[in-house]
């Protein structure tokens, strides 16, 4: 009977010491591995990129494979804030409030040209990039980006999540960056 194991891709395990019934490795590696495969995103979908996100969550390009099966619409329970679509100046305070309600550790993914830099809407009413009000981790360009690109952005976020030091959120550098945005 043919074994099935050769058809399954087993992921890379972190470096550590292995023995009979145990596996010893660094704490932050384990925490990173667990966190990266269970990110709960908050889809902050405003316009056209939101429809491409709906296609990404659909059956064809399944984002749930990456651990994001449960979308959280409450910022208190979310890890990743995905800003998809144009943010107008009227919407800026709302976005800021949603970001401030998220608990650490939190990541921000800016999807689309409008969220990254204002896009084609160089007008008086559009915020020229959300990094004017909140810190952003990964930018996904495109207008709208293909679902493959959005998944690529999520995979880059997974890379950041996996390799983040456990002390990062308490470090002086991080606090200085938040102070630059005026966030406590």
């Amino acid at each position: 009977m043919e074994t099935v194991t050769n058809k399954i891709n087993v992921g890379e395990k972190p470096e550590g010491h292995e023995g009979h019934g145990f596996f010893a490795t660094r704490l932050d590696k384990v925490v990173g591995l667990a966190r990266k495969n269970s990110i709960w995103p908050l889809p902050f979908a405003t316009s056209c990129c939101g429809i491409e996100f709906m296609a990404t969550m659909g059956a064809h390009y399944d984002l749930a494979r990456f651990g994001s099966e449960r979308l959280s619409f409450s910022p208190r329970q979310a890890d990743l804030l995905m800003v998809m679509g144009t943010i107008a100046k009227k919407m800026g305070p709302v976005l800021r409030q949603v970001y401030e309600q998220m608990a650490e550790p939190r990541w921000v993914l800016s999807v689309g040209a409008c969220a990254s830099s204002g896009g084609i809407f160089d007008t008086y009413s559009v915020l020229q990039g959300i990094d004017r009000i909140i810190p952003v981790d990964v930018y996904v360009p495109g207008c709208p980006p293909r679902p493959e690109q959005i998944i690529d952005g999520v995979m880059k976020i997974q890379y950041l999540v996996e390799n983040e030091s456990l002390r990062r959120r308490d470090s002086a550098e991080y606090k200085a960056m938040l102070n630059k945005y005026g966030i406590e």
Partner: protein
Amino acid sequence: MMEASADIAPKVVKEEKQYSYLNLGPTHPATHGIFQNVLKMDGEVIVDATPTIGYIHRAFEKLAEHRPYNQITPITDRMNYCSSPINNIGWHMTVEKLLGVEIPKRVQYLRVIIMELARITDHLVCNAVIGVDTGALTGFVYLFQQRELVYEIYEEICGARLTTNIGRIGGFERDFSPKAWEKINKFLKEFPVVLKEFEDLLKRNRIFMDRTIGCGGISAERALNYSFSGVNLRAAGVDYDVRAMNPYSSYEDFDFIIPVGTNGDVYDRFMVRQEEMWQSMSIIKQAMKKLPEGPFHAKVPEFYLPPKEEVYNNMEALIYHFKIVMGETDVPKGEVYHCVEGGNGELGFYLISDGGRQPFRLHLRRPCFIFYQAYPEMIKGSMLSDAILTMSSMNVIAGELDA
């Protein structure tokens, strides 16, 4: 005796009714789009609603005054982004009306095919979302899979999935490739099966009918006074369809039924959209059968990019190419209004040109903006969950609402 009883008579204190205010905020999983409603509620029943819009105002009309005519097409894409080819073709037809250009028959039939495909995708989103809001999440996944097939067709024709920038002023940039026809035929073969399955899940479903019949209705008189158009007006009983009343792009050559509802409630809108999707497929089949041969663009050298071989060999073509790309073509003076049947209703473009390279004024008659005004009236006296269902059945697209 009377005075004594007056002393001991209980004092009746008139208590003012206390209402609570619920903010159905701009970011909400159930409002499909960015608009806010402050609901004044008496328990679970809604007494009044105050909508606030403008959270995605991108100043399209002002932007259009500072862009050349062919660069406005990507801007119109982003109005009703679920059916962007209809916006693009509507804009192109407005400019062609101003220039007085005669469009070949083949282009008109191809435009009809694209617009009907876009109408199908728009109605798919809305019906899937009505299903989701009543709890039927399966239909959403089925129908979005079918939208992927339409996206592949768009990719064959213009290269983009969602915001298509399809066509040019004067026609199409290239004729439909054989691969595109293959994909359209595949869609026409596979889609009816899925649509029938989805329809059978919900059409006579007891729970769905109980939820949606009688919910969020509006009478035909009020709908006309609020200038409703499109599916919302047809569900209320008025058979106004721009394709039938003011036919454009050879719609008069096709045979189709305009479905009409009776109460204007959520169930009627759902059923009208379903039937319109069947009619759209029939129109596409008729167009494919009667498709005439001919050029795929009109002769508008000032707006239509010349073929690359001529640009490298012919001085005149080089100058036209330069002027078109840099946006330096002057347009004759005039005022024109053209409307098409968008996914939500009568989508109108009012263009005023003062003879320059950019429009003097472009006013977009956006159906979502106009019929969303009636929302507080439609939900008065209903429960919160019915209000959510009414909003999603009206197919309010935030991009078109705010522009």
